[in-house]
C-alpha cells in the first residue's frame, strides 16, 4: 500500500536527527505524563516510535483518502451558502478522516487533549498532507494558530478553547484587510469594549481570509481609538458559536481551490482579548506568522515532492526517439536539479523546525516555572536564546527558498511533460497553480528578504556557515565542504561591500542577492551533513545541489561586485 510517509525515507531520516533527543527531553520533562495518560511515552525510543507511527497514519490517509479526493476538490471547490462556507465534499471527507485519526491539536499538551508532539513531526505531517492536496493542507494546518493562544492566552481560555481544536474544530487567522496586506500596521477593524455586554465587539471587514468560516478565529483589530500604527492593534479570539461574522464572498483563485479564501464582515461580533492590548501586531502576530511561515515552507516542500514524483514517473514512462525521455541529459538535468532543490529545501525546513522546537519547549518550561515562582537556569536561558535566534534567522530562508523552489519545480514538472503538461488532464497543472501562492502569502519572498537581511548584515548566517565548515564530513563530502567555504567567503565580501556603501537603497537592492547567497551556502552544508550520514540517500543530491548553488552564489557575487550605489538610479521607477 502506498504511504506518503514510509515511501519517503528522507522524512524518516530528518525525524531521526540527533537533536531530537534534546527536543523530546524538553517536551516530555522526564516523561512525567506516563502514569496519568496511557498514550504518553515512557522513554525517548517510545516517543520516537510514536512519532513514526503517527506519521505513518498521516502518510496512509494522504495516500488514500486525500489523494483520491484531490482532483474532485480542485474542480468542485468550496460553496458559499447564505453567509456560510460549505467545503467541497472531498474536503469534508479528508477532514473527517484526519479528525477520526486524532490529528488535531497535535502540539498541544495532554491536559488539553493534545498529543504533545514537537513542532518537527507536526511539520512533517503538514508536508505530507500538502503533497497530495495543498489546499486541504491549509485547512488542516491552521490548527497551528492554537499555538499562539496557548502562548499568550489565559489559562481559562486554554481550558475552554484548546480541547475544541484537539477534537477537530478548525481555525483561521484574520489579519488581512482591503487596505492592509503586507502592511498590517494599517489594520482598521474596530474593537470596542462594551461595558454593557462585558466583552469586546468587533466591527469592520477582513479580506483574503483562509478558511474564513472557521470555528475559532484569531483576529487582529484596532482597540486603541485614534491610533494609526501597529501599537494600537490587539489580538482577539472570536468563537463562531457567538455569531456576528458573516462570509460575504469566497474568492475565485488560481490555485489551492479546496481552501476557501473569504471576505468577512464583522457586525458587533463578540470577542475576547488575547493577552494584553496593543501587543497584537508587535508580539502575537509576529509569533503567529513565524509558525505560519514554517507551515508554508512545509507546504512548499510537499508540492515540490509532488512535482518531482509526477515528473519522474512521466519521464520514465514517456518514450521519444525510441527510448524513455528520462535517459536524455536535458531531461535528467532538470529532474536531478528538482530533486536536489527538494532535498536541500527539506533539510533547511527541518533544521528550522528543530530549532523552533528547542526554544519553544524552553519558553514553555519558563512559563511553567514562572507560575511556580522559579526561573530557567543560566544554561537553559543561554540555550533558549541561542535557538530562538537560530530559528528566527532560518525561518525566512526556509519559507522564501522553499516557496521559490516549489514554483521552479512546478515549472519544470510541466516542462518535462511537454505539451501534455499544458493540458488540464494531468496533475502537474494543479501543482503549478497551487505552488504559485506559496511565495506570496504569509509574507511574500520579498518580505522574507526583509526579515532575513538583518542576519546577513549582522553576520549570523555567515557564523552558521563558518561553524558548519568546521564540522567533520565524509571523505566524499570534503571537496564540497571546501567549495562551501569559498561560497561563504564570497558572501562575506559581498556583504561588506553592500554595507560599506552606507546607502540604504543600495543595500536593499543587494538584499535579495545576499539573502540567496546565504541560503545556498547554508543548504549546501546541511546536505553535506545528510550525505555524510546517509550517502545512499543524499550523496547525489549533494553533488548536484552544490554545482547549482556554487554557480548561483557566484552569479549573485558577480552582480553585487559590479553594482554601485550610483546604479540605483537606473533601477528606480
Amino acid at each position, binding site marked *: 500500500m502506498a504511504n506518503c510517509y514510509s515511501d519517503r525515507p528522507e522524512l524518516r531520516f530528518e525525524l531521526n536527527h540527533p537533536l531530537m533527543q534534546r527536543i523530546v527531553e524538553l517536551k516530555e520533562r522526564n516523561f512525567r505524563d506516563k502514569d496519568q495518560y*496511557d*498514550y*504518553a*511515552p515512557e522513554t525517548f525510543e517510545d516517543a520516537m*516510535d*510514536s512519532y513514526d*507511527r*503517527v506519521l505513518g*497514519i498521516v502518510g*496512509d*490517509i494522504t495516500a*488514500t*483518502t486525500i489523494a483520491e479526493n484531490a482532483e474532485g476538490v480542485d474542480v468542485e471547490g468550496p460553496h458559499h451558502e447564505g453567509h456560510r462556507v460549505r467545503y467541497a465534499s472531498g474536503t469534508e471527507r479528508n477532514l473527517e*478522516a484526519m479528525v*477520526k*485519526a*486524532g*490529528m488535531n491539536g*497535535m502540539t498541544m499538551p495532554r491536559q488539553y487533549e493534545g*498529543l504533545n508532539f514537537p513542532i518537527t513531526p507536526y511539520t512533517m505531517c503538514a508536508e505530507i498532507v500538502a503533497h497530495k492536496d495543498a489546499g486541504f493542507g491549509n485547512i488542516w494546518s491552521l490548527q497551528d494558530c492554537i499555538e499562539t493562544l496557548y502562548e499568550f492566552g489565559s489559562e481559562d481560555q486554554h481550558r475552554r478553547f484548546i480541547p475544541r481544536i484537539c477534537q477537530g474544530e478548525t481555525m483561521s487567522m484574520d489579519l488581512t484587510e482591503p487596505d492592509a496586506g503586507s502592511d498590517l500596521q494599517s489594520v482598521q477593524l474596530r474593537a470596542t469594549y462594551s461595558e454593557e455586554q462585558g466583552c469586546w465587539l468587533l466591527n469592520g471587514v477582513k479580506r483574503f481570509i483562509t478558511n474564513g468560516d472557521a470555528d475559532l478565529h484569531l483576529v487582529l483589530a484596532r482597540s486603541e481609538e485614534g491610533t494609526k500604527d501597529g501599537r494600537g492593534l490587539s489580538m482577539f479570539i472570536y468563537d463562531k458559536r457567538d455569531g456576528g461574522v458573516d462570509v460575504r464572498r469566497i474568492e475565485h483563485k488560481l490555485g489551492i481551490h479546496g481552501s476557501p479564501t473569504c471576505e468577512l464582515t464583522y457586525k458587533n461580533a463578540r470577542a475576547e482579548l488575547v493577552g494584553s492590548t496593543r501587543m497584537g501586531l508587535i508580539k502575537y502576530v509576529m509569533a503567529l506568522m513565524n509558525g505560519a511561515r514554517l507551515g508554508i515552507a512545509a507546504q512548499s516542500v510537499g508540492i515540490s515532492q509532488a512535482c518531482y514524483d509526477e515528473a519522474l514517473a512521466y519521464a520514465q514512462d514517456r518514450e521519444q526517439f525510441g527510448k524513455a525521455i528520462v535517459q536524455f541529459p536535458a531531461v535528467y538535468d532538470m529532474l536531478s536539479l528538482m530533486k536536489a532543490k527538494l532535498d536541500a529545501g527539506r533539510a533547511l525546513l527541518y533544521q528550522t523546525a528543530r530549532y523552533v522546537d528547542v526554544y519553544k519547549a524552553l519558553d514553555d518550561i519558563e512559563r511553567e516555572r514562572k507560575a511556580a515562582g522559579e526561573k530557567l537556569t543560566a544554561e537553559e536561558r543561554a540555550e533558549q536564546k541561542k535557538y530562538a535566534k537560530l530559528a528566527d534567522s532560518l525561518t525566512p530562508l526556509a519559507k522564501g527558498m522553499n516557496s521559490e523552489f516549489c514554483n521552479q519545480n512546478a515549472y519544470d514538472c510541466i516542462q518535462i511533460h511537454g505539451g501534455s503538461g499544458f493540458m488540464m488532464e494531468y496533475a502537474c497543472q494543479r501543482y503549478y497553480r497551487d505552488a504559485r501562492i506559496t511565495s506570496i502569502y504569509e509574507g511574500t519572498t520579498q518580505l522574507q528578504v526583509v526579515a532575513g537581511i538583518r542576519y546577513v548584515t549582522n553576520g549570523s548566517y555567515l557564523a552558521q556557515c563558518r561553524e558548519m565548515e568546521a564540522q567533520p564530513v565524509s571523505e566524499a563530502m570534503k571537496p564540497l565542504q571546501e567549495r562551501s567555504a569559498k561560497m561563504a567567503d564570497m558572501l562575506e565580501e559581498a556583504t561588506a561591500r553592500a554595507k560599506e556603501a552606507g546607502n540604504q537603497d543600495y543595500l536593499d537592492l543587494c538584499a535579495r542577492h545576499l539573502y540567496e547567497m546565504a541560503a545556498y551556502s547554508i543548504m549546501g552544508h546541511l546536505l553535506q551533513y545528510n550525505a555524510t550520514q546517509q550517502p545512499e540517500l543524499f550523496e547525489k543530491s549533494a553533488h548536484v545541489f552544490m554545482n547549482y548553488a556554487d554557480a548561483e552564489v557566484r552569479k549573485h557575487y558577480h552582480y553585487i561586485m559590479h553594482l554601485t550605489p550610483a546604479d540605483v538610479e537606473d533601477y528606480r521607477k
Partner: protein
Amino acid sequence: MSLKIVVLAKQVPDTRNVGPDAMTPEGTVNRSALPAIFNPEDLNALEQALRLKEQFPGSTITVLTMGLPKAADVLRDALYRGADDAVLLTDRALGGADTLATSYALSMAIRKIGIPDLIIGGRQAIDGDTAQVGPQVAQKLDLDQVTYVESIDSVCEDCRKITVTRRIDGGVEKVEAPLPCMLTITGSAPACRPQNAKRVMKFKKAAAPAENREGARWTITQWGAADIDADLAQCGLAGSPTKVKAVQNIVFKAKESKRLSADDAEIKQLMAELLASHTIG
C-alpha cells in the same frame, strides 16, 4: 440502547500483491513471501461496528481472531481503529482447520464471550474466498444471518430488530432481521476509518501472552482449545473434513479472439454461446 458486538477478523496473506514467489513449487501459498494483512472485508465489518458504537454510545466491540500468535497484529490494528477489546484464539490443536473446524472454534469462543447482539464479519477472506465461516458460525450458534450486507440502516431498540441493505446481483435489497444475528459485510461497504493517534500510542503496548513481548502494558485476551471447552475431535485438522487432493498450476497459453460485426444476429449468437458455456449467467 447499547449494543454488544463481536467482530470476526482474520489475518491473511496479501494476495492482492502477488509476486513471482507467491506459490511454493508444491502449489501451496508461500506465506512468508506475502505480507500478512487484516482481511480487507473484515475491516469493512469493523467500520460497521464502529458506526453502531458512535450511534449507540456505551456499545462495546470485541474483536475475535483465530490464528498464530502473530495474528495479534490484526487485533492491535482493530484496537487502534476503535475496538474496545480483543481476543486471540491460538492453540496447536486448532491449527490446520478448514471452515467447519474454524467456525466451530469461533462459535465456542463467542459462547465464552457471551452471545452478543451482533456478530459482524467480512463476507469472505482473500486467501480462501469461501465465504463460509460467517454463515457456519451463525448456524452453530443457532442465530439468524444476513450475508452480503452493504450498510446497516437502522436498529430498533424496542422491537429488537435490525434493518440492513444487502448487495445482490443487479441491485440491493432491504432486509429486516431479529437481534441477535450474524452479518457478513461486503467490500462495497464503506472503508474502515484510519487508525487513531492516541489509540496507537496506547495499544502499541498491547500484546498477547504468546507473543512474549517485553514491556507490554495491556494484555490481549488469549484462549486455547481448553479455555473455550472445545471438543478436540471438532478442532483443527481432526475436525476438518476438507482435504486438498491435488493442486494444479494453470497457465493460460492461447489467447482466443473472435471478430464480430455489429449485426444483432451475431451478437445474439455470441450471447447464446456464452450462456451455454456458463461463461456468463
